[in-house]
Protein backbone atom coordinates (compact mmCIF):
# COMPACT_ATOMS: atom_id res chain seq x y z
CA UNK A 1 0.00 0.00 0.00
CA UNK A 2 1.57 3.26 -1.02
CA UNK A 3 0.61 6.37 0.84
CA UNK A 4 -0.77 9.43 -0.93
CA UNK A 5 1.05 12.69 -0.26
CA UNK A 6 -0.42 14.67 2.59
CA UNK A 7 -3.23 17.05 1.86
CA UNK A 8 -4.62 19.88 3.90
CA UNK A 9 -1.48 21.96 4.01
CA UNK A 10 -3.50 25.15 4.37
CA UNK A 11 -3.54 26.34 7.97
CA UNK A 12 -7.07 26.57 9.31
CA UNK A 13 -8.21 29.87 10.69
CA UNK A 14 -6.60 30.45 14.09
CA UNK A 15 -8.68 31.53 17.04
CA UNK A 16 -7.14 34.69 18.43
CA UNK A 17 -5.22 34.34 21.65
CA UNK A 18 -6.89 37.44 23.04
CA UNK A 19 -10.30 35.85 22.60
CA UNK A 20 -9.23 32.73 24.44
CA UNK A 21 -7.66 34.83 27.18
CA UNK A 22 -10.96 36.66 27.56
CA UNK A 23 -12.77 33.33 27.81
CA UNK A 24 -10.28 32.24 30.42
CA UNK A 25 -10.81 35.35 32.51
CA UNK A 26 -14.56 34.84 32.15
CA UNK A 27 -14.13 31.56 34.05
CA UNK A 28 -14.36 33.60 37.22
CA UNK A 29 -18.09 34.03 36.60
CA UNK A 30 -19.12 30.37 36.85
CA UNK A 31 -16.67 30.07 39.76
CA UNK A 32 -18.54 32.74 41.70
CA UNK A 33 -21.86 31.21 40.66
CA UNK A 34 -20.78 27.84 42.00
CA UNK A 35 -20.31 29.24 45.48
CA UNK A 36 -23.96 30.21 45.78
CA UNK A 37 -25.30 26.76 46.47
CA UNK A 38 -24.04 23.23 46.84
CA UNK A 39 -26.29 22.17 43.98
CA UNK A 40 -24.75 24.81 41.73
CA UNK A 41 -21.21 23.63 42.37
CA UNK A 42 -21.15 21.94 38.98
CA UNK A 43 -21.02 25.40 37.38
CA UNK A 44 -17.47 25.66 38.67
CA UNK A 45 -16.68 22.85 36.28
CA UNK A 46 -17.32 25.18 33.37
CA UNK A 47 -14.91 27.58 34.99
CA UNK A 48 -12.39 24.74 34.98
CA UNK A 49 -13.00 24.15 31.27
CA UNK A 50 -12.48 27.81 30.36
CA UNK A 51 -9.42 28.40 32.54
CA UNK A 52 -7.86 25.17 31.29
CA UNK A 53 -8.49 26.20 27.70
CA UNK A 54 -6.71 29.48 28.26
CA UNK A 55 -3.74 27.80 29.93
CA UNK A 56 -3.42 25.17 27.21
CA UNK A 57 -3.52 27.79 24.47
CA UNK A 58 -0.78 29.81 26.18
CA UNK A 59 1.37 26.70 26.55
CA UNK A 60 0.82 26.03 22.87
CA UNK A 61 1.83 29.58 21.93
CA UNK A 62 5.07 29.53 23.85
CA UNK A 63 6.00 25.92 23.11
CA UNK A 64 5.72 26.45 19.36
CA UNK A 65 8.94 28.41 19.60
CA UNK A 66 10.72 25.38 21.00
CA UNK A 67 11.55 25.91 24.64
CA UNK A 68 14.30 23.35 24.86
CA UNK A 69 13.42 21.56 28.05
CA UNK A 70 10.10 20.49 26.81
CA UNK A 71 6.49 21.17 27.37
CA UNK A 72 5.93 19.40 30.73
CA UNK A 73 8.20 21.77 32.64
CA UNK A 74 6.25 24.83 31.66
CA UNK A 75 3.00 23.33 32.87
CA UNK A 76 4.52 22.46 36.24
CA UNK A 77 6.16 25.89 36.44
CA UNK A 78 2.93 27.67 35.73
CA UNK A 79 0.99 25.77 38.35
CA UNK A 80 3.86 26.09 40.82
CA UNK A 81 3.78 29.85 40.48
CA UNK A 82 -0.02 29.86 40.60
CA UNK A 83 -0.27 27.87 43.82
CA UNK A 84 1.83 30.50 45.57
CA UNK A 85 -0.28 33.33 44.15
CA UNK A 86 -3.48 31.52 45.12
CA UNK A 87 -2.39 30.91 48.70
CA UNK A 88 -1.22 34.50 49.06
CA UNK A 89 -4.48 35.73 47.54
CA UNK A 90 -6.49 33.69 50.02
CA UNK A 91 -4.51 35.10 52.91
CA UNK A 92 -4.78 38.68 51.69
CA UNK A 93 -8.50 38.22 51.10
CA UNK A 94 -9.33 36.22 54.20
CA UNK A 95 -11.75 38.82 55.45
CA UNK A 96 -13.28 39.38 52.03
CA UNK A 97 -13.54 35.99 50.32
CA UNK A 98 -15.00 37.24 47.03
CA UNK A 99 -11.94 39.40 46.46
CA UNK A 100 -9.51 36.51 46.86
CA UNK A 101 -9.59 35.34 43.21
CA UNK A 102 -8.97 38.87 41.99
CA UNK A 103 -6.05 39.40 44.37
CA UNK A 104 -4.64 36.02 43.40
CA UNK A 105 -5.00 36.94 39.73
CA UNK A 106 -2.97 40.12 40.22
CA UNK A 107 -0.33 38.25 42.23
CA UNK A 108 -0.17 35.56 39.55
CA UNK A 109 0.37 38.32 37.03
CA UNK A 110 3.29 39.54 39.09
CA UNK A 111 4.80 36.08 39.58
CA UNK A 112 4.37 35.20 35.91
CA UNK A 113 5.89 38.51 34.87
CA UNK A 114 8.94 38.04 37.07
CA UNK A 115 9.53 34.49 35.85
CA UNK A 116 8.98 35.42 32.22
CA UNK A 117 11.16 38.50 32.55
CA UNK A 118 13.99 36.46 34.11
CA UNK A 119 13.74 33.82 31.43
CA UNK A 120 13.70 36.32 28.58
CA UNK A 121 16.15 38.99 29.73
CA UNK A 122 18.41 37.42 32.35
CA UNK A 123 18.65 33.93 30.93
CA UNK A 124 18.39 35.35 27.43
CA UNK A 125 15.95 32.83 26.06
CA UNK A 126 15.11 33.79 22.52
CA UNK A 127 11.35 33.53 22.76
CA UNK A 128 9.59 36.82 22.06
CA UNK A 129 6.29 35.82 23.65
CA UNK A 130 7.87 34.43 26.82
CA UNK A 131 6.82 37.16 29.22
CA UNK A 132 3.26 37.39 27.93
CA UNK A 133 2.77 33.63 27.88
CA UNK A 134 4.27 33.11 31.33
CA UNK A 135 1.87 35.74 32.67
CA UNK A 136 -1.04 34.04 30.91
CA UNK A 137 -0.12 30.59 32.19
CA UNK A 138 0.21 31.73 35.80
CA UNK A 139 -3.02 33.72 35.65
CA UNK A 140 -4.88 30.84 34.01
CA UNK A 141 -3.47 28.57 36.70
CA UNK A 142 -4.74 30.78 39.49
CA UNK A 143 -8.23 30.90 38.00
CA UNK A 144 -8.09 27.14 37.50
CA UNK A 145 -7.32 26.64 41.17
CA UNK A 146 -10.26 28.78 42.24
CA UNK A 147 -12.59 27.03 39.82
CA UNK A 148 -11.51 23.74 41.39
CA UNK A 149 -12.01 25.08 44.90
CA UNK A 150 -15.52 26.20 44.01
CA UNK A 151 -16.43 22.89 42.37
CA UNK A 152 -14.96 20.68 45.07
CA UNK A 153 -15.79 22.52 48.26
CA UNK A 154 -18.64 24.72 47.09
CA UNK A 155 -16.89 27.85 48.32
CA UNK A 156 -13.74 29.86 47.72
CA UNK A 157 -13.16 30.67 51.35
CA UNK A 158 -9.96 29.84 53.11
CA UNK A 159 -11.58 27.29 55.44
CA UNK A 160 -12.47 25.01 52.55
CA UNK A 161 -9.02 25.37 51.07
CA UNK A 162 -7.41 24.59 54.40
CA UNK A 163 -9.36 21.35 54.51
CA UNK A 164 -8.16 20.55 51.00
CA UNK A 165 -4.61 21.22 52.09
CA UNK A 166 -4.92 19.19 55.27
CA UNK A 167 -5.91 16.12 53.30
CA UNK A 168 -3.30 16.78 50.63
CA UNK A 169 -5.92 17.04 47.88
CA UNK A 170 -4.40 20.39 46.92
CA UNK A 171 -1.66 18.35 45.24
CA UNK A 172 -4.27 16.52 43.19
CA UNK A 173 -5.60 19.85 41.93
CA UNK A 174 -2.03 20.92 41.20
CA UNK A 175 -1.16 17.91 39.09
CA UNK A 176 -4.44 17.55 37.21
CA UNK A 177 -4.25 21.24 36.44
CA UNK A 178 -0.63 20.99 35.31
CA UNK A 179 -1.34 17.99 33.13
CA UNK A 180 -4.51 19.62 31.91
CA UNK A 181 -2.65 22.55 30.43
CA UNK A 182 0.44 20.75 29.20
CA UNK A 183 -1.10 17.56 27.78
CA UNK A 184 -2.99 19.13 24.84
CA UNK A 185 0.03 20.57 23.08
CA UNK A 186 2.37 17.78 24.18
CA UNK A 187 0.05 15.08 22.88
CA UNK A 188 -0.50 16.85 19.57
CA UNK A 189 3.14 17.73 19.01
CA UNK A 190 4.21 17.26 15.46
CA UNK A 191 4.49 18.80 12.04
CA UNK A 192 0.75 18.80 11.36
CA UNK A 193 -0.33 20.14 14.71
CA UNK A 194 -3.18 22.58 14.45
CA UNK A 195 -4.95 24.73 16.97
CA UNK A 196 -8.39 23.22 16.34
CA UNK A 197 -7.32 19.77 17.45
CA UNK A 198 -5.15 20.96 20.30
CA UNK A 199 -7.92 23.07 21.79
CA UNK A 200 -10.39 20.22 21.52
CA UNK A 201 -7.97 18.12 23.50
CA UNK A 202 -7.76 20.99 25.98
CA UNK A 203 -11.51 20.66 26.44
CA UNK A 204 -11.05 16.91 26.96
CA UNK A 205 -8.47 17.45 29.69
CA UNK A 206 -10.75 20.10 31.18
CA UNK A 207 -13.52 17.52 31.16
CA UNK A 208 -11.25 15.07 32.95
CA UNK A 209 -10.66 17.65 35.64
CA UNK A 210 -14.41 18.29 35.78
CA UNK A 211 -15.04 14.60 36.52
CA UNK A 212 -12.23 14.39 39.06
CA UNK A 213 -13.41 17.55 40.82
CA UNK A 214 -16.84 15.97 40.97
CA UNK A 215 -15.50 12.75 42.51
CA UNK A 216 -13.48 14.72 45.04
CA UNK A 217 -16.48 16.87 45.95
CA UNK A 218 -18.15 13.77 47.42
CA UNK A 219 -16.08 14.52 50.51
CA UNK A 220 -17.43 18.04 50.86
CA UNK A 221 -20.81 18.20 49.19
CA UNK A 222 -22.12 14.70 49.72
CA UNK A 223 -24.82 13.70 47.28
CA UNK A 224 -24.73 17.00 45.38
CA UNK A 225 -21.51 15.68 43.88
CA UNK A 226 -23.52 13.40 41.61
CA UNK A 227 -24.65 16.39 39.56
CA UNK A 228 -21.06 17.50 39.03
CA UNK A 229 -19.92 14.01 38.07
CA UNK A 230 -22.76 13.50 35.59
CA UNK A 231 -22.30 16.91 33.96
CA UNK A 232 -18.55 16.29 33.91
CA UNK A 233 -18.93 12.95 32.18
CA UNK A 234 -21.24 14.52 29.59
CA UNK A 235 -18.81 17.38 28.97
CA UNK A 236 -15.95 14.91 28.64
CA UNK A 237 -17.86 12.71 26.21
CA UNK A 238 -18.77 15.65 23.97
CA UNK A 239 -15.20 16.93 23.95
CA UNK A 240 -13.69 13.47 23.45
CA UNK A 241 -15.94 12.72 20.48
CA UNK A 242 -15.04 16.06 18.93
CA UNK A 243 -11.34 15.39 19.43
CA UNK A 244 -11.46 11.86 18.07
CA UNK A 245 -13.47 12.97 15.06
CA UNK A 246 -10.95 15.75 14.32
CA UNK A 247 -8.04 13.33 14.74
CA UNK A 248 -9.66 10.93 12.31
CA UNK A 249 -10.09 13.78 9.82
CA UNK A 250 -6.52 14.98 10.28
CA UNK A 251 -4.74 11.66 10.35
CA UNK A 252 -4.60 8.58 8.21
CA UNK A 253 -6.73 6.10 10.07
CA UNK A 254 -6.93 2.40 9.41
CA UNK A 255 -8.27 -0.31 11.63
CA UNK A 256 -5.29 -2.57 11.02
CA UNK A 257 -2.59 -3.09 8.52
CA UNK A 258 1.04 -3.70 7.78
CA UNK A 259 3.48 -0.85 7.65
CA UNK A 260 3.12 1.00 4.35
CA UNK A 261 6.02 1.45 1.99
CA UNK A 262 7.30 4.99 1.90
CA UNK A 263 8.12 6.40 -1.52
CA UNK A 264 11.87 6.79 -1.43
CA UNK A 265 12.89 10.34 -2.18
Amino acid sequence: MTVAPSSGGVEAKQIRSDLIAALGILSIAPTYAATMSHYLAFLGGFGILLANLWGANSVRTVAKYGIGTGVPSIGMLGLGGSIIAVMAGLYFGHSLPLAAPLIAFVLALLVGFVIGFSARYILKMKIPVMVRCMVEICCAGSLLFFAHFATITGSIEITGVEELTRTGIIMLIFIIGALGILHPYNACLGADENQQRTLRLALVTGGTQFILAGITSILFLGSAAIITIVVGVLAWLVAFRAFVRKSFEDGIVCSTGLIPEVETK
Partner: protein
Amino acid sequence: MLDVSTGLGIVALMGAAATIAGAAEDLESDIGSQSNPNSQVQLAPQVGVLHRIFNKAISGEPPAYAFYSSIAATVAWILMTANVNVITSFVVGSFVAALFHGAYATTAYLGRLASQRRYGQPIYLDVIHNHLLGIMGHGFVATFCILVLSYTLWALLKHPFPFVMLAFIWGITIGAIGSSTGDVHYGSEREFQNQPFGAGLNAAYSGKIVTRAEIGTRSSIDNAWFCAKFGGPATGICFGLIIFLDNWRTVVFDPRMAVIVGFAIVAILIAINRALEVFARKTYGPYPEKVAMLGGGE
Protein backbone atom coordinates in the same frame (compact mmCIF):
# COMPACT_ATOMS: atom_id res chain seq x y z
CA MET B 1 8.94 5.88 68.23
CA LEU B 2 8.43 2.34 67.06
CA ASP B 3 10.63 -0.42 68.37
CA VAL B 4 13.24 -1.49 65.91
CA SER B 5 11.89 -4.90 64.93
CA THR B 6 8.41 -3.57 64.06
CA GLY B 7 10.01 -0.68 62.28
CA LEU B 8 12.20 -2.98 60.23
CA GLY B 9 9.23 -5.12 59.29
CA ILE B 10 7.35 -2.06 58.07
CA VAL B 11 10.36 -0.80 56.16
CA ALA B 12 10.76 -4.21 54.51
CA LEU B 13 7.11 -4.13 53.44
CA MET B 14 7.62 -0.67 51.98
CA GLY B 15 10.72 -1.83 50.17
CA ALA B 16 8.87 -4.78 48.66
CA ALA B 17 5.97 -2.61 47.51
CA ALA B 18 8.43 -0.13 46.04
CA THR B 19 10.24 -2.86 44.12
CA ILE B 20 7.05 -4.12 42.49
CA ALA B 21 5.94 -0.57 41.76
CA GLY B 22 9.24 0.26 40.10
CA ALA B 23 9.20 -2.82 37.89
CA ALA B 24 5.57 -2.30 36.85
CA GLU B 25 6.16 1.37 36.15
CA ASP B 26 9.07 0.69 33.88
CA LEU B 27 7.31 -2.05 31.96
CA GLU B 28 4.27 0.16 31.54
CA SER B 29 6.40 2.92 30.07
CA ASP B 30 7.91 0.38 27.69
CA ILE B 31 4.55 -0.95 26.47
CA GLY B 32 3.33 2.57 25.86
CA SER B 33 6.51 4.18 24.68
CA GLN B 34 6.83 7.17 26.92
CA SER B 35 9.32 9.84 27.90
CA ASN B 36 12.79 9.93 26.44
CA PRO B 37 12.97 6.86 24.18
CA ASN B 38 9.71 8.09 22.74
CA SER B 39 11.64 10.91 21.13
CA GLN B 40 13.03 8.32 18.71
CA VAL B 41 9.57 6.94 18.02
CA GLN B 42 8.47 10.52 17.37
CA LEU B 43 11.45 11.08 15.06
CA ALA B 44 11.06 7.85 13.11
CA PRO B 45 8.34 8.89 10.61
CA GLN B 46 10.30 12.05 9.83
CA VAL B 47 13.23 9.97 8.60
CA GLY B 48 10.97 7.67 6.66
CA VAL B 49 10.57 4.88 9.20
CA LEU B 50 6.86 4.21 9.67
CA HIS B 51 5.94 2.05 12.62
CA ARG B 52 3.27 0.32 14.66
CA ILE B 53 4.59 1.42 18.05
CA PHE B 54 2.29 2.95 20.64
CA ASN B 55 3.53 6.54 20.71
CA LYS B 56 2.25 7.49 24.12
CA ALA B 57 3.30 11.02 24.92
CA ILE B 58 1.77 11.93 28.27
CA SER B 59 4.34 14.50 29.43
CA GLY B 60 7.29 12.85 31.11
CA GLU B 61 6.93 9.93 33.48
CA PRO B 62 7.22 11.90 36.73
CA PRO B 63 4.21 14.18 36.17
CA ALA B 64 2.26 11.29 34.62
CA TYR B 65 2.80 9.01 37.60
CA ALA B 66 2.15 11.83 40.03
CA PHE B 67 -1.14 12.25 38.15
CA TYR B 68 -2.22 8.62 38.44
CA SER B 69 -1.02 8.27 42.04
CA SER B 70 -2.79 11.42 43.16
CA ILE B 71 -6.05 10.34 41.57
CA ALA B 72 -5.79 6.88 43.08
CA ALA B 73 -4.89 8.29 46.48
CA THR B 74 -7.77 10.78 46.44
CA VAL B 75 -10.35 8.16 45.50
CA ALA B 76 -8.89 5.78 48.08
CA TRP B 77 -9.00 8.57 50.65
CA ILE B 78 -12.67 9.26 49.91
CA LEU B 79 -13.46 5.58 50.40
CA MET B 80 -11.37 5.31 53.56
CA THR B 81 -13.17 8.25 55.14
CA ALA B 82 -16.38 6.34 54.41
CA ASN B 83 -14.89 3.46 56.42
CA VAL B 84 -14.36 1.17 53.47
CA ASN B 85 -11.64 -1.44 53.96
CA VAL B 86 -8.19 -0.08 53.16
CA ILE B 87 -7.21 -2.65 50.54
CA THR B 88 -10.55 -2.32 48.77
CA SER B 89 -10.08 1.45 48.69
CA PHE B 90 -6.68 1.03 47.10
CA VAL B 91 -8.07 -1.34 44.48
CA VAL B 92 -10.92 1.00 43.55
CA GLY B 93 -8.62 4.02 43.59
CA SER B 94 -6.04 2.37 41.37
CA PHE B 95 -8.79 1.20 39.03
CA VAL B 96 -10.17 4.73 38.63
CA ALA B 97 -6.65 6.01 38.00
CA ALA B 98 -6.16 3.29 35.38
CA LEU B 99 -9.30 4.47 33.57
CA PHE B 100 -7.94 8.02 33.32
CA HIS B 101 -4.58 6.60 32.34
CA GLY B 102 -6.20 4.78 29.45
CA ALA B 103 -8.06 7.88 28.33
CA TYR B 104 -4.92 10.02 28.31
CA ALA B 105 -2.91 7.30 26.55
CA THR B 106 -5.52 7.10 23.78
CA THR B 107 -5.59 10.86 23.25
CA ALA B 108 -1.79 10.96 23.17
CA TYR B 109 -1.57 8.28 20.50
CA LEU B 110 -4.29 9.85 18.35
CA GLY B 111 -2.90 13.35 18.77
CA ARG B 112 0.74 12.57 18.03
CA LEU B 113 0.07 10.38 15.02
CA ALA B 114 -2.53 12.72 13.56
CA SER B 115 0.19 15.36 13.61
CA GLN B 116 2.46 13.13 11.55
CA ARG B 117 0.16 12.79 8.58
CA ARG B 118 2.56 14.43 6.19
CA TYR B 119 5.07 11.63 6.68
CA GLY B 120 2.44 9.08 5.87
CA GLN B 121 2.30 7.59 9.36
CA PRO B 122 -1.08 5.85 9.76
CA ILE B 123 -3.07 5.71 12.97
CA TYR B 124 -3.68 2.02 13.59
CA LEU B 125 -6.77 1.47 15.67
CA ASP B 126 -5.79 -2.09 16.49
CA VAL B 127 -2.59 -0.81 18.12
CA ILE B 128 -4.82 1.03 20.57
CA HIS B 129 -7.02 -2.02 21.17
CA ASN B 130 -4.11 -4.35 21.71
CA HIS B 131 -2.06 -2.19 24.01
CA LEU B 132 -4.45 -0.15 26.06
CA LEU B 133 -5.32 -2.83 28.58
CA GLY B 134 -1.69 -3.82 29.01
CA ILE B 135 -0.80 -0.20 29.72
CA MET B 136 -3.68 0.21 32.12
CA GLY B 137 -2.92 -3.05 33.89
CA HIS B 138 0.70 -2.28 34.55
CA GLY B 139 -0.25 1.21 35.62
CA PHE B 140 -2.76 -0.30 38.02
CA VAL B 141 -0.11 -2.47 39.65
CA ALA B 142 2.36 0.40 39.95
CA THR B 143 -0.26 2.77 41.37
CA PHE B 144 -1.54 0.19 43.84
CA CYS B 145 1.96 -0.39 45.19
CA ILE B 146 2.58 3.35 45.47
CA LEU B 147 -0.59 3.59 47.54
CA VAL B 148 0.59 0.75 49.80
CA LEU B 149 3.92 2.52 50.19
CA SER B 150 2.38 5.91 50.95
CA TYR B 151 -0.18 4.49 53.33
CA THR B 152 2.44 2.54 55.28
CA LEU B 153 4.57 5.66 55.56
CA TRP B 154 1.63 7.79 56.62
CA ALA B 155 -0.31 5.49 58.91
CA LEU B 156 2.32 3.19 60.39
CA LEU B 157 5.44 5.35 60.45
CA LYS B 158 3.25 8.39 61.18
CA HIS B 159 4.76 10.71 58.60
CA PRO B 160 3.43 14.27 59.00
CA PHE B 161 2.66 14.86 55.32
CA PRO B 162 -0.87 13.88 54.22
CA PHE B 163 -1.52 10.61 52.43
CA VAL B 164 -2.41 12.16 49.05
CA MET B 165 0.68 14.35 49.11
CA LEU B 166 2.93 11.38 49.85
CA ALA B 167 1.40 9.49 46.92
CA PHE B 168 2.04 12.54 44.73
CA ILE B 169 5.69 12.72 45.83
CA TRP B 170 6.32 9.02 45.31
CA GLY B 171 4.63 9.24 41.94
CA ILE B 172 7.11 11.89 40.86
CA THR B 173 10.03 9.94 42.31
CA ILE B 174 9.09 6.66 40.69
CA GLY B 175 8.64 8.40 37.37
CA ALA B 176 12.06 10.02 37.67
CA ILE B 177 13.67 6.68 38.53
CA GLY B 178 11.92 4.69 35.83
CA SER B 179 12.79 7.34 33.30
CA SER B 180 16.47 7.28 34.29
CA THR B 181 17.13 3.56 34.57
CA GLY B 182 14.77 1.16 32.83
CA ASP B 183 14.08 3.45 29.89
CA VAL B 184 17.75 3.27 28.91
CA HIS B 185 17.39 -0.48 28.43
CA TYR B 186 14.33 0.06 26.28
CA GLY B 187 15.78 3.00 24.39
CA SER B 188 19.19 1.68 23.47
CA GLU B 189 18.64 -2.05 23.38
CA ARG B 190 15.11 -2.74 22.28
CA GLU B 191 14.37 0.23 20.05
CA PHE B 192 17.64 -0.32 18.24
CA GLN B 193 17.89 -4.05 18.58
CA ASN B 194 19.56 -4.30 15.18
CA GLN B 195 22.54 -2.25 16.33
CA PRO B 196 25.47 -4.20 17.72
CA PHE B 197 25.71 -4.67 21.47
CA GLY B 198 28.52 -2.76 23.08
CA ALA B 199 28.19 0.73 21.68
CA GLY B 200 26.10 3.78 22.20
CA LEU B 201 23.71 4.80 19.46
CA ASN B 202 25.47 6.54 16.60
CA ALA B 203 23.68 9.78 15.87
CA ALA B 204 23.46 8.80 12.21
CA TYR B 205 20.94 6.11 13.17
CA SER B 206 18.61 8.49 14.98
CA GLY B 207 15.03 7.70 14.22
CA LYS B 208 15.78 4.39 12.54
CA ILE B 209 14.04 2.28 15.12
CA VAL B 210 13.32 -1.39 14.67
CA THR B 211 9.88 -1.83 13.15
CA ARG B 212 9.95 -5.46 12.13
CA ALA B 213 9.99 -8.21 14.69
CA GLU B 214 10.85 -11.91 14.70
CA ILE B 215 7.59 -12.54 12.86
CA GLY B 216 5.59 -9.65 11.49
CA THR B 217 5.83 -6.11 12.72
CA ARG B 218 7.23 -4.93 16.05
CA SER B 219 4.49 -4.34 18.58
CA SER B 220 5.05 -2.39 21.76
CA ILE B 221 3.41 -5.11 23.81
CA ASP B 222 6.44 -7.31 23.20
CA ASN B 223 8.69 -4.71 24.75
CA ALA B 224 7.46 -5.81 28.16
CA TRP B 225 8.77 -9.31 27.50
CA PHE B 226 12.18 -7.99 26.53
CA CYS B 227 12.59 -5.32 29.16
CA ALA B 228 11.34 -7.59 31.92
CA LYS B 229 14.64 -9.38 31.57
CA PHE B 230 16.66 -6.45 32.83
CA GLY B 231 15.26 -2.94 32.68
CA GLY B 232 12.08 -3.59 34.61
CA PRO B 233 13.56 -5.48 37.56
CA ALA B 234 16.52 -3.08 37.71
CA THR B 235 14.14 -0.16 38.10
CA GLY B 236 12.25 -2.07 40.75
CA ILE B 237 15.38 -2.85 42.71
CA CYS B 238 16.48 0.77 42.40
CA PHE B 239 13.27 2.17 43.86
CA GLY B 240 13.08 -0.58 46.47
CA LEU B 241 16.63 0.11 47.60
CA ILE B 242 15.99 3.82 47.86
CA ILE B 243 12.88 3.38 49.99
CA PHE B 244 14.47 0.68 52.11
CA LEU B 245 17.78 2.42 52.78
CA ASP B 246 16.25 5.82 53.39
CA ASN B 247 13.76 4.53 55.92
CA TRP B 248 15.97 1.85 57.41
CA ARG B 249 18.49 4.38 58.61
CA THR B 250 15.84 6.61 60.20
CA VAL B 251 14.11 3.69 61.95
CA VAL B 252 17.17 1.91 63.27
CA PHE B 253 19.42 4.79 64.26
CA ASP B 254 18.91 7.94 66.28
CA PRO B 255 18.79 11.15 64.19
CA ARG B 256 22.47 12.04 64.48
CA MET B 257 23.66 8.54 63.57
CA ALA B 258 21.07 8.34 60.79
CA VAL B 259 22.65 11.29 59.00
CA ILE B 260 26.16 9.87 59.47
CA VAL B 261 25.03 6.46 58.21
CA GLY B 262 23.46 8.21 55.23
CA PHE B 263 26.75 9.89 54.33
CA ALA B 264 28.52 6.56 54.78
CA ILE B 265 26.13 4.84 52.38
CA VAL B 266 26.68 7.59 49.81
CA ALA B 267 30.45 7.14 50.12
CA ILE B 268 30.02 3.41 49.55
CA LEU B 269 27.90 4.15 46.48
CA ILE B 270 30.59 6.39 45.03
CA ALA B 271 33.14 3.63 45.63
CA ILE B 272 30.94 1.00 43.98
CA ASN B 273 30.38 3.27 41.01
CA ARG B 274 34.11 3.78 40.64
CA ALA B 275 34.72 0.03 40.82
CA LEU B 276 32.09 -0.55 38.14
CA GLU B 277 33.62 2.14 35.96
CA VAL B 278 37.07 0.60 36.22
CA PHE B 279 35.61 -2.84 35.50
CA ALA B 280 33.86 -1.59 32.39
CA ARG B 281 36.88 0.24 31.08
CA LYS B 282 39.07 -2.81 31.56
CA THR B 283 36.59 -5.31 30.18
CA TYR B 284 35.51 -3.36 27.14
CA GLY B 285 38.66 -1.46 26.35
CA PRO B 286 38.96 1.57 24.09
CA TYR B 287 37.88 1.71 20.46
CA PRO B 288 40.88 0.74 18.31
CA GLU B 289 40.03 3.23 15.59
CA LYS B 290 39.86 5.97 18.17
CA VAL B 291 43.14 4.93 19.70
CA ALA B 292 44.71 5.09 16.27
CA MET B 293 43.16 8.48 15.56
CA LEU B 294 43.64 10.19 18.89
CA GLY B 295 46.73 8.50 20.20
CA GLY B 296 46.67 5.71 22.71
CA GLY B 297 47.59 5.46 26.31
CA GLU B 298 45.61 5.78 29.52
